């Protein structure tokens, strides 16, 4: 990967020069982060291919640290003078003051860069567009009540280079491909929506793995089911979460609270609890940036550290937090490879990758059969957490009432709310049917990064359901 940057003029010699400029008036540590991202997408809506868009973004961010204080500057000007100007601006922002700091010789490292089966750029736009048309006709074919369909194809090719004054010099290439369908069904009860998306860290071979007809049908069926939906109940009930998309529950309920930067600032309900039982002993939660093909996969994080597999909670006991370089340095330990940033214009911070609750032993059918009066959430949308209080919400986009151990009426969209630390202790059954969920974008302090999550079927003794039915 380093070769492609060298071709653009960003070779080891120039990187070394920029690091030198960043530290020649003092400062403890400096880093050069270069990024080159190409994106293409095509949008089908309202019965036709609406538009195709392409973009290219290439730039460099320079970080200079003095103690725990960071100076940062970024530029899209890759000439030597542009890069040196950015390095000096970062040093000024860090308020360096002193003699120059020596930097280690760059030591190029190999990264476990994921192979790309079929380069998205090698596939004609006509082929991509044909997938969208096919999705539209498949979705509309599910029923005449489908009144609107939109579908989106997108791919991105992100190359990064990370070098720092400790001698780290590494690169990665992250290719992601996504396909999503949104359907609207219209009936006597108004308009209802259904959404389905699939995305993986891979090239166009994604479409050898998935059938766009099935993605489209899932979106359409979800919208159609809601024509008959009742308002969701309002109040506290037992909840069964279906496999896959329910992973967002743990992303919100505890994942963010286990990010070491939030822990250090007293903004986590999990601060000071390592080694303690924080969850039901059925709960094992892992964050794994190495999972092949998953949306949050990478070879190195945006600080040059190899992606890791970090066990966060094992059999209910809090094992460790997630770490980036800054927090790891302060605590005198190694980064867990979770330092990520949205782009070269952003500073890295602690982020999740692919976060999941490991499979248990229960038969999912038995879990549902054991609930007399509750809610089954087949599909979750996004969510949000206040890490300080632990309270989180997430949206149900496909849900059913459970009555007498059986799924009955579909429910309209509503939100579930709970408290992360409390909910972890209320998980009384974990299924053997683990699945990863759809691709997600996790937002934190204004930065979005791709993440994956997953769960098997699981039973939570109570969550508050924010419906409108009395």
């Amino acid at each position: 990967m380093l070769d492609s940057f060298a071709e653009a003029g960003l070779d080891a010699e120039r990187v070394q020069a920029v690091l030198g400029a960043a530290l020649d008036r003092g400062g403890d540590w400096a880093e050069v982060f270069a990024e080159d991202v190409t994106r293409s997408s095509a949008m089908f809506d309202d019965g036709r291919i609406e538009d195709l868009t392409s973009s290219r973004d290439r730039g460099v961010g320079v970080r200079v640290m003095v103690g725990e204080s960071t100076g940062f500057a970024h530029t899209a000007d890759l000439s030597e003078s542009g890069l040196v100007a950015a390095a000096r601006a970062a040093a000024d922002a860090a308020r360096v003051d002193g003699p120059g700091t020596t930097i280690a010789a760059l030591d190029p490292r190999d990264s476990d860069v994921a192979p790309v089966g079929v380069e998205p750029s090698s596939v004609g736009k006509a082929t991509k567009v044909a997938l969208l048309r096919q999705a539209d006709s498949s979705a509309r074919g599910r029923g005449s009540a489908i009144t609107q369909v939109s579908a989106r194809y997108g791919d991105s090719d992100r190359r990064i280079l990370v070098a720092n004054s400790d001698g780290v010099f590494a690169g990665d290439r992250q290719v992601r491909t996504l396909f999503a369908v949104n359907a609207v069904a219209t009936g006597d009860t108004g308009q209802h929506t259904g959404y389905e998306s699939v995305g993986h860290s891979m090239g166009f071979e994604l479409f050898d793995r998935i059938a766009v007809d099935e993605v489209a049908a899932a979106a359409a069926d979800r919208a159609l089911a809601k024509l008959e939906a009742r308002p969701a109940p309002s109040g506290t009930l037992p909840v069964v979460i279906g496999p896959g998309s329910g992973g967002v529950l743990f992303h919100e309920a505890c994942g963010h609270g286990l990010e070491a930067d939030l822990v250090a600032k007293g903004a986590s309900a999990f601060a000071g609890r390592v080694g303690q039982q924080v969850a039901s002993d059925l709960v094992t939660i892992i964050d794994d940036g190495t999972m092949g093909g998953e949306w949050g996969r990478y070879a190195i994080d945006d600080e040059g550290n190899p992606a890791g597999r970090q066990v966060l909670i094992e059999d209910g006991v809090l094992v460790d937090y997630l770490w980036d370089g800054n927090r790891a340095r302060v605590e005198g330990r190694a980064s867990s490879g979770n330092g990520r940033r949205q782009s070269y214009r952003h500073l890295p911070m602690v982020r999740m990758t692919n976060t999941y609750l490991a499979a248990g032993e229960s038969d999912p059918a038995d879990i549902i059969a054991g609930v007399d009066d509750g809610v089954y959430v087949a599909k979750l949308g996004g969510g949000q957490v206040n890490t300080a209080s632990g309270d989180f919400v997430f949206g149900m986009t496909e849900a059913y009432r459970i009555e007498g151990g059986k799924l009955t009426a579909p429910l309209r969209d509503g939100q579930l709310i709970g408290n992360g630390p409390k909910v972890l202790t209320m998980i009384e059954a974990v299924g053997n049917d683990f699945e990863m969920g759809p691709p997600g974008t996790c937002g934190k302090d204004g930065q979005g990064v791709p993440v994956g999550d997953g769960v098997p079927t699981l039973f939570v003794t109570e969550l508050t359901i924010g419906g409108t039915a009395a």
Partner: protein
Amino acid sequence: MSTTTDTEPTALLELARSVVARAEPGEELEVAVSSGSSTSVKVHGGEVESMTTAGSRSVGIRVIRDGRVGFASAGTFDPTVLDQMLVEARDNASFAEPDEFAGLTPPDGVEAVEIDLWHDEMLETTADTKIGLALELERRVLAADDRIAGVRVASYGDGFGVAALASTSGIESASRSTSASVSVQALADDDDRSRTGWSWDGARHAGLLDLGPVVDRAVTQATGLIGAEKPDSGTVSLVLDPNLTATVLGLISGTLTGDRVLKGRSPFADRLGEQVGALGLTIACDPTDPTSLGADSHDGEGLATRRNPLVVDGVLDRFLHDGYTGRRSGAGSTGSAVRGTRSLPGPGVQALSVAPGSAGTLEDLIASVDDGILVYALAGLHSGVNAVSGDFSVGVEGIRIRNGALAEPISECTIGSTLQRLLLDIAAIGSEVTHLPSGTSTPPVRIDGVRLSGN
């Protein structure tokens, strides 16, 4: 790093023109160019955590040929990349399907208001002043109340942006603006958890920022929520301060755009001229109001902005259109195209303005409620609001109102309704309008009959 010429709109307009001049016969071409510079400072524990300075440049190229739209963008003015993007945009257009209404929007004769969004003071603000403001904000929050245990982050940010637009349809516009803001999240200890209060302010330059109300709101909310518990389910009234009124009415206004209406994705699509809101409710989108931080003289397609009433005394008056949806609906553009340089324009809300009512202050609204909630924060707006069906279910934290007085704090509960119902259930509108940093101007409101889900 940006050079001084980047602060001159004429230089960017020249660049946009030079690309437009390369249009081929039979091709419509629109070029948006922007550049900017920004600084952000984050402090924690009396120290600078990070300081970022940066310049940015963006170009977006829209090509339309035979009713087919293609778009490409880049984060640089590098001529070789611009060449590549022009080729990409043309190539993209060749794969889109024709639409008889696709096309660039020509000037429509509406005169643009003159609004000065540029304050030289912002460029003269020193790094010490910027850092000092963030540190002062943190210090004042910590000192305001013994129960404040910490500040998660206190930050200051400012910057300027210069933008230009040119097209083969005869559009030429250029503008520049400055802005500055501060924000803080306060943490209050509450047994094994913390309570948070967040607040911010924004202005055209640092000297116009007012830290006092920012400190008060963050501290009042964080400490007010200490001891909050999950309430019982029931039906309640909500009192929304101007910030939260802006949030809720912003969500609803976002469904009143031409693309949502034409594509059958708005719950208000067939309701022009009908009573969709409470009597007395008047909402406009008004980017021509120079006091709004959302003010702008031109929209994202270079047309003059204008004041567009959306709801007048509860009656749905119009939808917001850009050139495309204006042509397709027959209503014409309302000058409501919004865009980033790097994305295609679409109709959107620029600067929401809610007319004052006669229900007095926020305190008067609280005093008028028998059983309700003074809302401090809403959670899950992106996952709990369906802009097509109108289903609305979001997490809420705040203070219970009983018999006209503030009572116990509540959390871990949701409020549920529909966007359609919320508009009709606005029962009282405050008398005084607040101009918010988001660009929205609104009084506080009271909404009745909302479902509270807790125990």
